[in-house]
């Protein structure tokens, strides 16, 4: 057994070739790890992290978009509701207006018809009065003449004269019409 400083190292004394081999072999492994294996893993991890982050961002964006769409939809809905109510309101007022208009129109029409009827009646009345006025005078004088022309003592005759006069009057009025 080799000794160092007069101490027997026994199995603790390294064989120099083994020491060198250990360093060299480990160096090779380290080189492969550092150049190939660890970069591969780290690259994948970085990619994964980026992808997860990207996914989260994408999801957040989609959520924001959805919220925005919902907000817009709600706005639209409220707008539509408001519009509908204003339209209804308008229709109501318009309907009332139309009704009132119609009513006044009907009223005026009725008034107009009434007025023309009244006017016609008045005109006819005036005409009747006029014709009466002219005829009554003549008739009265006719009747008077006849009564006077006939003998007044004969009651029978007087009665017949009156009757005749009335019949004449009736027939003349029948011709006139």
């Amino acid at each position: 057994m080799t000794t160092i400083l007069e101490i027997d190292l026994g199995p603790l004394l390294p064989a120099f070739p083994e020491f060198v081999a250990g360093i060299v072999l480990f160096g090779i492994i380290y080189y492969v790890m550092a150049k190939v294996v660890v970069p591969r893993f780290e690259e994948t991890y970085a990619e994964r992290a980026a992808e997860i982050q990207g996914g989260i961002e994408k999801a957040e964006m989609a959520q924001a978009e959805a919220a925005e769409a919902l907000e817009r939809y709600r706005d639209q809905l409220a707008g539509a509701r408001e519009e509908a109510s204003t339209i209804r309101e308008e229709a109501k007022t318009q309907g009332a207006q139309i009704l009132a208009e119609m009513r006044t129109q009907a009223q005026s029409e009725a008034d107009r018809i009434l007025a023309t009827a009244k006017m016609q009646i008045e005109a006819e009345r005036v005409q009747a009065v006029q014709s009466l006025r002219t005829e009554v005078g003549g008739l009265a004088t006719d009747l008077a003449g006849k009564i006077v022309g006939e003998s007044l003592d004969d009651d029978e005759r007087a009665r017949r004269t009156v009757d005749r006069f009335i019949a004449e009057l009736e027939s003349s009025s029948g011709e006139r019409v």
Partner: protein
Amino acid sequence: MGLLGLIIPLEGGGEEGSHWPPGVHSFDPKPLFPDAGMDWLNTYLLQAVIGTIIVIVMWLWVSKDQKVVPGFKQWCGEQLYNLVRNGIGRDALGHDYKKFTPYLVALFSFILVNNLFGQFFLTMFPTFSRVGYAYALALLTWLLYNGVGIAKHGLGGYLKMMTMPKGVPPLLYIIIIPLEILSNFIVRPVTLALRLFANLFAGHLVVIVFVVGGTMLLEQTSFLYKIAGGASLLMAYPIFALEIFVGVLQAYIFTVLTAQYVASSLAEDH
């Protein structure tokens, strides 16, 4: 032996009998070409080389064609990679762990594979039961943690940080400085190497005792010896399981301590 030799793997086979009892000589290297005069070209070196190839090929295969959504193979690789990267590196080193991930992953997988060689039926020897390999890795770790410390704080600043801890009265420096030098620059690497070596050396010695001793007892004519030999061989299996555990644990510890030492060198104040 006969059939038993096929079922229960033994180092050196029957010739081990002439080396009884097992001891340091059981770990003597066996040159691949005994007559060529190249004693350094032995089974341990072959093992270490094969281990290196396994580690490299395994990591290259696992990390090939990586996808953002991992398949089973990639998932397994990531679990192992994360164990070292996050469980060891990030825990100890904080935010600058990424720089040291290759070193830690290489360290962990190299030690792990070589330790498991102790229980693998074709090799049956942990490479690190040869102290030279353990010294090699300890030296590299020593260079690493001192190197990053000097690079960060400068030689003077680093030495001051490592030997003169804050909050110690200057009067005590007479004691503290030699102690810190001993602890940080000598004891650390030596214990690192010896812990790994001794665990595997002793563990493998136990395996040899149970397997070879059991076989020898089984070959005796006495019936009681045969029973004792059978029991001893059965006991070898729990010992194997224990040795697998120890092998994994030692790989982990070596890596964790390396990360710790680097972290202490990088620390703002010790």
